[in-house]
């Protein structure tokens, strides 16, 4: 094995092991920041030793043993050894047992709990959203600062700072490394789901920059959500979120046109939808519903996505059901954005005039004042009603509001079409 190759192999091992490593260490030192530093130290030790000695048979156990020795040093230095002595003894026993395959199962349960604690801590509401995002991708996703920076089109030092600040805040506020119970558990879990969906959406419909999608972010969010579903298998909304992401991700290939521009749902080549992801999404949705979570906000959104996924052609879409699902969604999470989506579904089910009626009621909504999709939808419905001149104004307004270059081009294209139709109305 050549040296650079083994270096990459070590990084791959670390990507697989780092979340479990950090989670296990955080339980001992009760500080996520310190745990991550200890894990990094163990990686450095591996990078020094493995090129000579070769990658050990159980690299995860090696890294954990190395890091735990450093954790003991750390605790000794911080003079908390007395209190922790007993606890550590237990940790090391468990660690020794880990080397024996038969005891793996018992340990895995602990690992699962640790990982759940870690993700709940990384997404703790005490942190600002961008801190939660950076910390989650770093600690759970195993992404480097540079990778996170590239994904969010932000300079690396900015991400590094967000991570440092987030760790400091967790330490200062003495956020316990635990899985809370009852209502707090629900609230904390939904904070995790929010962070994961935010990461997914940033990849799925980039809010800034010239690329319409950044698939790597979608993959990272989906990856972490799949892990979360294994960690919290009885939480219906976790499965709902997985279902939503799997189905949305199934369309990724079809959402990009030849020039990298967005292709709208109804114009997509459905043959390019990823059937494997659709199947996985539908299965996850079924799990959410079986657990009694059909009315959860993510499960409802997944059910809507599933309606599209099941339709072989755009004409086969069950718009009446989609409109009804949006109504249920609006009932539990009332929001003008949901209402706008409902308008689109109603227009498809019952005609553009019915949809436009809902949209008109939203134009006074302050929350949508600068939301490009409002004029975009309005323009679309007006165009369908043959009111081309009004439609053109709306599309131009929408183009002026979006921050995404690709999206702007699409909207300006539609405005131009409306302008031509207004000048010389074509028979429709």
């Amino acid at each position: 094995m050549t040296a650079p190759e083994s270096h990459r192999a070590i990084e791959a091992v670390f990507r697989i092991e780092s979340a479990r490593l950090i989670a296990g260490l955080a339980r001992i030192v009760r500080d996520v920041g310190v745990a991550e530093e200890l894990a990094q130290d163990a990686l450095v030790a591996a990078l020094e030793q493995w090129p000579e000695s070769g990658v050990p048979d159980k690299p995860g156990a090696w890294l954990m043993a190395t890091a735990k020795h450093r954790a003991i040093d750390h605790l000794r230095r911080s003079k908390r050894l007395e209190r922790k002595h007993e606890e550590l003894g237990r940790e090391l026993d468990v660690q020794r047992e880990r080397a024996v395959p038969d005891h793996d199962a018992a340990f895995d349960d602990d690992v699962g709990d640790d990982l759940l604690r870690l993700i709940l801590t990384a997404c703790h509401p005490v942190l600002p959203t961008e801190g939660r995002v950076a910390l989650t991708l770093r600690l759970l996703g195993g992404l480097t600062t540079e990778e996170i920076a590239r994904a969010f089109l932000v300079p690396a030092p900015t991400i590094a700072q967000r991570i440092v600040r987030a760790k400091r805040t967790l330490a200062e506020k003495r956020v316990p490394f635990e899985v809370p119970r009852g209502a707090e558990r629900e609230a904390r879990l939904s904070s995790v789901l929010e962070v994961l969906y935010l990461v997914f959406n940033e990849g799925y419909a980039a809010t800034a920059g010239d690329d319409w999608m950044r698939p790597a972010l979608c993959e990272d969010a989906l990856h972490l959500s799949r892990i979360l579903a294994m960690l919290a298998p009885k939480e219906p909304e976790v499965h709902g979120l997985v279902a939503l992401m799997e189905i949305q991700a199934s369309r990724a290939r079809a959402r990009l046109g030849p020039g990298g521009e967005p292709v709208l749902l109804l114009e997509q080549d459905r043959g390019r939808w990823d059937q494997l992801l659709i199947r996985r999404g539908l299965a996850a949705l079924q799990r959410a519903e079986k657990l009694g979570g059909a009315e959860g906000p993510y499960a409802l959104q997944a059910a809507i996505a599933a309606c599209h996924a099941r339709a072989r052609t755009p004409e086969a879409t069950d718009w009446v059901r989609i409109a009804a699902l949006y109504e249920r969604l609006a009932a539990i999470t009332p929001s003008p954005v949901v209402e706008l989506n409902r308008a689109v579904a109603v227009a498809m089910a019952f005609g553009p005039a019915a949809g436009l009626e809902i949209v008109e009621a939203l134009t006074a909504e302050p929350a949508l004042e600068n939301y490009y999709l409002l004029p975009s939808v309005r323009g679309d419905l007006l165009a369908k009603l043959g009111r081309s001149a009004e439609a053109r104004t709306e599309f131009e307004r929408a183009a002026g509001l979006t921050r995404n270059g690709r999206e702007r081009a699409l909207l300006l294209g539609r405005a131009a079409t409306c302008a031509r139709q207004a000048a010389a109305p074509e028979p429709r």
Partner: protein
Amino acid sequence: MRFMVIVKASKSSEAGELPSKQLLADMGKFNEEMMQAGVLLAGEGLQPSSKGARVKFAAGKRPMVVDGPFAETKELVAGFWLIQVKSKEEAIEWMKRCPAPMGPGQDAEIEIRQVFEAEDFPSEIFPPEAAAREQEMRDELQKKAAKR
């Protein structure tokens, strides 16, 4: 990125012998581990080639069907996984953790192949000329919009 991980056939798999209880348990555990890590997308084991067929395409001729079994055992596929990881090295690391797929003490081989993603061949589907034309059109539209 996605990888298809192919488990090559052996004499016993081609003879239709079922894996031992122990191997099934070990494989189940390995699958579980890949699921816990959010890596495993799909996977199946395949019946021996005696239950399969080949459809051969020769130039200028109609497709010809050949029934199994097929001779070149070591080149046949006995099962596969589809996994999602960040690099080929990660895929390799995962497969080094796989229990010997034909059972302990049995020779076996796993082949790791990267799956094409949409972004792997944009220039073939979308010739650069077409992309350039698109860009021109878009620039034109932007200019027009700016004038208003």
